[in-house]
């Protein structure tokens, strides 16, 4: 009986997460196109279904019916492995994310560590896929992806270490419960731990944009420079899986921002906490991510590294030292 219920639970969560990721990937594209349309004074998709709501379905069908062409001279194993390595870790991340007090697949004590361990595999997927497709643009893009991610994981992880020090746990559920109450209890406003907390949130957010290869740090795609960067040779669903992986990573990144800084499922005014607050915060962050993409031009590679090594890492370190000093004193 216990095994059965455990199996059922497993099945439910697997199906639930895959459905959540697929729906998000599909409808975040729709949201992105609608929002871009709104920003650019046009309508966006509107032909397929009411408000273009069936557009993602049509896009998905198109991608799936396309022939999978593996370019001549490409390493077909790595070429196929690339999208999988981007998508799978993103799905794995969802295992430990607590969406509300009760909705969590596995409440691991090292949840935070697990998520950032999985999240860093996605670089490998892009690198292998780009390398395996044997395209000069893709190889340039692969080189960019690696140094970009290395440069951005450092400040991000320093911020994470700070948060672990503040909350005293790596268990995501406990991270959220330590922020119970109104918005003044949230980590972003926890000035008693460090006056630089909002800055830490900004650093996390910038690093998240860079990690997920979103504009203005979409150096790996850079359609006006590298045609499509790492995805240049990918047809049909190969590209589709990369795309889903990208959106899944955005969902993971914004979920983590919600959990670490914005109090997870807590209501800002201490009323009716629950899943809806988590989703509101997460989608607000995603909306911002899309908004940024359609507003800013792309940075270049060296200014990105400059930003990381000369600004973000020193500030993150300062925050770390300040926080540990304050924790020691208080």
């Amino acid at each position: 009986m216990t095994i059965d219920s455990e199996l059922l639970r497993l099945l439910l969560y697997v199906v639930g997460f895959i459905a959540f990721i697929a729906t998000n990937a599909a409808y975040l594209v729709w949201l992105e196109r609608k929002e871009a349309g709104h920003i650019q004074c046009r309508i966006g998709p509107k032909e397929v279904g009411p408000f273009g709501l069936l557009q993602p379905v049509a896009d998905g069908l198109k991608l799936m019916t396309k022939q999978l062409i593996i370019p001549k001279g490409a390493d077909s194993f790595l070429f196929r492995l690339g999208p999988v390595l981007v998508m799978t870790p993103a799905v794995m991340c969802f295992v430990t994310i607590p969406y509300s007090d009760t909705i969590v697949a596995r409440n691991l004590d090292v949840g935070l560590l697990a998520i950032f361990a999985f999240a860093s595999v996605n670089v490998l997927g892009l690198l292998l896929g780009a390398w395996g497709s044997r395209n000069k643009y893709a190889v340039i893009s692969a080189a960019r992806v690696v140094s970009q991610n290395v440069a951005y994981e450092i400040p991000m992880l320093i911020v994470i270490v700070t948060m672990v020090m503040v909350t005293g746990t790596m268990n995501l559920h406990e991270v959220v419960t330590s922020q119970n109450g109104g918005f003044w209890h949230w980590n972003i406003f926890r000035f008693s731990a460090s006056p630089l907390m909002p800055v830490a949130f900004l650093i996390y957010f910038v690093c998240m944009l860079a990690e997920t290869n979103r504009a203005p740090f979409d150096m790996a795609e850079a359609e006006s420079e590298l045609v499509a960067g790492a995805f240049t040779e990918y047809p049909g669903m190969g590209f589709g899986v990369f795309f889903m992986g990208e959106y899944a990573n955005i969902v993971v990144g914004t979920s983590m921002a919600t959990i670490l800084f914005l109090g997870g499922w807590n209501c800002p005014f201490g009323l009716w906490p629950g899943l809806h607050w988590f989703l509101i915060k997460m989608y607000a962050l995603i909306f911002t991510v899309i908004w940024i993409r359609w507003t800013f031009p792309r940075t270049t590679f060296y200014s990105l590294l400059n930003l990381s090594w000369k600004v973000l890492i020193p500030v993150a370190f300062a925050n770390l030292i300040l926080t540990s000093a304050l924790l020691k004193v208080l």
Partner: protein
Amino acid sequence: MTAIAQSASSETFVLNLGPQHPATHGVLRVKLVMDGEYIVEAEPVLGYIHRMHEKMGENRTWAQFLPNTGRMDYLHALAYNHNYVCLVERAASIEVPERAEYIRVITNELNRISSHLLWFGAFVLDLGGFSPLLYAFDDREQILDLLESVTGSRLTYCYFRFGGVYNDVDQDFLDGCKAFVARLRERMPMYHNLVTKNIILMKRLQDIGFIDAEMCRKYGATGPVARGAGIDFDVRRHEPYSVYPRFDFDIPVYPGCDSMARYMVRMDEMEQSMRIIEQAVGAIPEGPVMAAKAPKIIKPPKGDYYHAVETARGSFGIRAVSDGTNTPYRMKLRTPSFSNLVTFGEAAKGMLLPDALALMGSLDLVIPEIDR
């Protein structure tokens, strides 16, 4: 920059940028020898859209060549029309009525703004910012509507005739011009706030893409490229034609020599064009728009003729040799983007790929005009 090129390792590879590439805006191919992301050598390869306009000019009558001129630089077609009709008018000594000259100036400047707006959008698109493109197209649409109402076409115009213009403009057009100028004046601060003052854009353009006055002289670069290198040269001012000397306008010159200087020159030029349009619309005289004694068949006397105008991209010159018959003996077109492009090969050496593409965008190339 040279230091980087010299220290380049022997492990270089060749990257074919184009003929189909999002950043080349047409069928330009640039052969890049790359060392990682650094460009060791850049060689533009031309000819993918060569249509032999010069030879066509020698095969047909003077009048039959007129529509061809609008198909070289499709973004500033009226200036090309203008240059050709000015050349023929000079050769055949045809007097142009004053109202026609004013109409020519107004439509020309509108077209210049539309060209610069498209460049602005495409340039920011090259830098990865998508939204300004559509704002610019929104404004450009107003110009196209205005020009469509008098010329009948939206892109490849053939509106000017030897001795005047094809048809007169009405009050609606003049009012539309005023309304458009007011609208764009209002929107220019928005462009500057959204794009020019953006820190990412400034970092990508400032002190990058160095083309100095010496290089401009060496390769014959003109237009905003030369003015961005501190050379105060504008055909409208220094070899005046039409009624341009009657208007009060400035020639924006920036000594920066970088991509930002060229960007600022074009942004300021739009404002100056608006000033010209305002003055011309206010002072346009009544009268005919075609010369009364314009000959039906053009047979310019024997001779060697040259005329140049300032297009959105620089100085466009036509040299035509007439042997007294109804077809030109020789037609030579000097197009600005051709000379401007050649600077790319030298300026891009030692640059990173994204910076080189920003430099290419700042040259404002129109490929059919390079190949013609």
